[in-house]
């Protein structure tokens, strides 16, 4: 099958290339609204993280999922990735009149960007507990089969309440350490005591591999699931808000700045596009869509996707009033 190549857009770099942002998260937007200067926190292959006065913004290649602090960019063809901008931590980034000077000669215009402002309200009604439990089963099994176990993935088999033949592999040192810590968070959540919850969460921050450590991804998943469940069931003053506050406060100083940001956003019910879609399918969708979104989630990062699924699973169990087997089995 011979094929003609589609004509590639060739940008001849001359002067300062301007790049249009394709998407902008709601928190990123508020952080870039006013003119000012930011400091580069870290430069990575897929992202450039910059601290502004009102918080961090993550400039990412546009194949990265949309997120509340993300600004998606379509890079010119001669630019391999974000790290090829040659920027380093401590460098300056200027915002002026809706444009961002990223340095490395690249200027970003924000105006064309599509706003990513995830809605906590689902399009359909939440299913019954039995339906959610079925979807949860699909999500956990899919994650066991296709997920990554360098973080907390090996805890997956302990989350569902039947002692089934599920086996998610041997526990690495982080999963071992995470096991009792997550169990403690679960128990505290069940009792609803603010002090207990805060203490349990503090002890669970910053554990495991990744720029967003595994336990942070799990907590983010957990709180998203709990908040979205409560928001869509019309539950006010539920335990999710207590957990959210504990997570936002507990993260300060105990983990990487990026992870702190993600946890703060999750604590407000704002997740990345994939996490929001997965939660929505889990609570309102059919098993096939749950599987599809789970696979999308698992593809994120190294173990980030799997670790987030661990958290979503625990949060879902808590929301439908069930206990996991993290606490030494039932």
């Amino acid at each position, binding site marked *: 099958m011979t094929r003609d*190549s589609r004509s590639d857009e060739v940008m001849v770099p001359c002067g300062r290339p301007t790049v249009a942002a394709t998407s902008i998260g709601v928190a990123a937007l508020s952080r870039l609204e006013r003119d000012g200067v930011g400091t580069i926190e870290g430069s990575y292959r897929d992202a450039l993280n910059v601290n502004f006065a009102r918080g961090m913004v993550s400039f990412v290649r546009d194949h990265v999922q949309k997120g509340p602090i993300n600004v998606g960019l379509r890079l010119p063809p001669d630019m391999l990735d974000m790290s090829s901008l040659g920027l380093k931590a401590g460098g300056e980034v200027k915002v002026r009149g809706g444009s961002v000077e990223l340095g490395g000669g690249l200027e970003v215009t924000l105006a064309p960007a599509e706003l990513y402002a995830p809605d906590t309200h689902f399009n359909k009604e939440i299913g019954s507990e039995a339906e959610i439990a079925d979807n949860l089963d699909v999500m956990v099994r899919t994650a066991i089969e296709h997920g990554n176990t360098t973080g907390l993935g090996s805890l997956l088999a302990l989350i569902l309440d039947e002692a089934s033949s599920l086996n998610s592999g041997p526990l690495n040192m982080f999963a071992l350490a995470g096991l009792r810590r997550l169990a403690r968070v679960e128990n505290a959540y069940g009792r609803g005591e603010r002090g207990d919850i805060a203490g349990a969460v503090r002890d669970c921050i910053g554990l495991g591999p990744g720029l967003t450590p595994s336990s942070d991804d799990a907590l983010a998943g957990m709180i998203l699931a709990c908040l979205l469940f409560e928001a869509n069931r019309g539950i006010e003053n539920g335990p999710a808000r207590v957990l959210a506050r504990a997570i936002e406060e507990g993260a300060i100083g105990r983990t990487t700045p990026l992870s702190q940001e993600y946890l703060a956003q999750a604590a407000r019910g704002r997740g990345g596009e994939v996490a929001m879609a997965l939660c929505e399918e889990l609570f309102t969708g059919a098993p096939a869509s749950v599987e599809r979104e789970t696979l999308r989630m698992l593809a994120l990062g190294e173990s980030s996707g799997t670790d987030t699924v661990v958290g979503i699973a625990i949060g879902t169990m808590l929301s439908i009033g069930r206990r996991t087997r993290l606490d030494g089995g039932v």
Partner: protein
Amino acid sequence: MPGKSSILTETLVVVNIGVSTFADDLRTQNVDVVQVDWRPPAGGDVEMMKLLEKLGT
């Protein structure tokens, strides 16, 4: 490297040599891709290329 292909059990990391839209489609699926800005060897002269190959370059 003896033994079976390992890509079925590993995360794909792709080097795309040729049409760049294939790389775009892979990135849409969150696959790591390095796009090679390929140029024909020996200035596109196939005979010359074959000679160079024979010489082991």
